């Protein structure tokens, strides 16, 4: 939001390419489902249809539907854009910190990770001053702690800092 996309008329990936990629990806999911079903048996046994029976046909339908989607996607005009590169950069600005956050939660706990995520966002995307950033970055985890651990008695993952504080 603070970094406006590049100049108007900027380029981006083709919608056609992405849509064909998505169809292929889903088709792969269907193939994996069929493969996994085959290994547990798709036939008829003493207890009736085997475990793989239903998912096998589900997988088959995924593959067929995706093949149709893939063919239709290949007919999309090449000029159509999926999004501008500037927009993709915006999306990346959420995905990358979020991926780091998700990876960090088991190690440093959800409170510290959340505080850092909020503060990082405010500082680099929202361009807030340090005082405001630190204030909200510290206040939110405390608010979450009070709401979840004290009020609803739901334990959330903790890390070294909480151990140090004896929480």
């Amino acid at each position, binding site marked *: *939001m*603070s970094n*406006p996309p590049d100049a108007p008329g900027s380029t981006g990936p083709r919608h056609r390419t*992405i*849509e064909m990629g*998505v*169809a292929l990806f*889903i088709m792969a*999911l*269907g193939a994996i489902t069929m493969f*996994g*079903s085959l290994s*547990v048996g798709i036939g008829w046994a003493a*207890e*009736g*249809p*085997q*475990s793989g029976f*239903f*998912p096998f046909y*589900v*997988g088959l*339908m*995924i593959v067929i*539907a*995706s093949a149709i*989607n893939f063919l*239709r996607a290949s007919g999309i005009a090449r000029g159509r854009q*999926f*999004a501008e590169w500037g*927009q*993709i950069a*915006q*999306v990346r*600005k*959420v*995905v990358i910190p*979020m991926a780091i*956050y*998700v*990876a960090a*939660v088991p190690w440093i706990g*959800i409170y510290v990770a*959340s505080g850092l*995520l*909020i503060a*990082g*966002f*405010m500082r680099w*995307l*929202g361009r807030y001053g340090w005082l405001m950033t630190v204030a*909200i970055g510290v206040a*939110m985890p405390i608010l979450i702690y009070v709401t*979840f651990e004290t009020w*609803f*008695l*739901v*334990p*959330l*993952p903790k890390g070294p800092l909480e151990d140090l504080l004896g929480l």
Partner: protein
Amino acid sequence: MDSFGDLMHGFAVVLSWHNFLYMLIGITLGVIIGVLPGLGGANGVAILLPLTFSMPPTSAIILLSCIYWGALFGGAITSILFNIPGEPWSVATTFDGHPMAQNGKAGEALTAAFTSSFVGALFAVIVITLAAPLVARFALQFGPAEMFSVFFLAFCSFVGMGKEPPAKTVASMMVGFALAAVGTDTVTGQLRLTFGSTQLLGGFDFLVAVIGLFGIGEILLTMEEGLSFKGKATGINPTVVWQTWKTLPRYWVTSLRACVIGCWMGITPAGATPASFMSYGIAKRASRNGDKFGTGEIEGVIAPETAAHAAGTSALLPMLALGVPGSPTAAVLLGGLMIWGLQPGPLLFVEQKDFVWGLIASMYLGNVVGLAVVLTMVPMFAAILRVPFGIIAPIILVICAIGAYTVHNNSFDVIMMLVFGIGGYFLKKCNYPLAPLVLAIVLGDKAEEAFRQSLLLSQGSVAVLWSSKLVTIIMSLGLLALFWPAVSAGLNRVLKPLFAR
């Protein structure tokens, strides 16, 4: 009347002070959820569901269903004041709602929207009160084949009635079924599709999928669009409300038509979003001021809002009576029932009277309370949207992560949430519908069970799905829904020349 007595009993259940308090909290939270981007009805309910595990089921469902009503109300606020539909079903409300706000008639637009929502919901609740017990009693005699045919009908409606290409709907739905199949096979207890991973033993939880697809996916889309909130002043006060209310009865035909469309689309799981568009489209064609639609006609606010709310509410009818939810949010509520230890389906009306009628009574009260809350607190809710996205976005992300974690107290679920989020972003951009995916994850095991049990009964012959009159009718309706676009095109070709003469 039998159900009237039950309903009164339901009111007695709801009118305890703590249930009333849950109702107020639910509505307020719901409106906030509806106003914020990235937190919708389905997602908001999914995040809060784990917190209700220890509550009595009746209080829990009152809290969660009121969040849903609140979210339905909240969507209108952002559509009218900011031209940003907070929920997909309020997209049609922006067409005339925002122009009204630009013309300085925000107060009228908001009053009309809230009141229409209320009327739509009330109509749907009355339909539920009268029809749900009958449907449930009828469904008590269903065997596995009948149950499967109902699932079949529900999923076929998505394919035929949705505006997305059918192959995309099928792909998305089947991915949901495949995800539901991962883990332990509910019939034989055998493990399948886990590929040796211990994390997949428990399968994919639909709550994590909902939070990822609707929550994280939505935030990514919002980021891409580069949000800048430029809101109009609310300008709502008792005089405006009263003046608007005096004009509303004039549009009773539009209103009634929207109620019927909404209920129909909500019960067959097409959902609130197509209902609002359809209602808007028909109102535009039928109205004398049709050509002025889009420039700030009050009718253009009434039609979609009434239909969306009627659809959103009536989506609970099949969920309660048959165990087949009519919308993603109803699906999440259904998942909640199972977690609280209630068996969804027609027996609910026999075995859990307090619960069912308490819920229905709370729909009446919840919507009255909701109307009062939104009319009085609009400026406060609008102020939330003025909090910059740089602060709101990370807080929503953190709330989603906590919601995903608390489902099973498992950090792996948080990773899955992000994966679902990124997947949701691409699916949404490529015009794949997400609702059938979610419904398939929730219903996958039950649909499969019904299918396999029917096959067991018939020794493996698919003809069991055409074995009795009832099953045949429901299956045929399903096929009709599946091929509806082709059927209606054919009908048009045959009927048009007849009427032209």
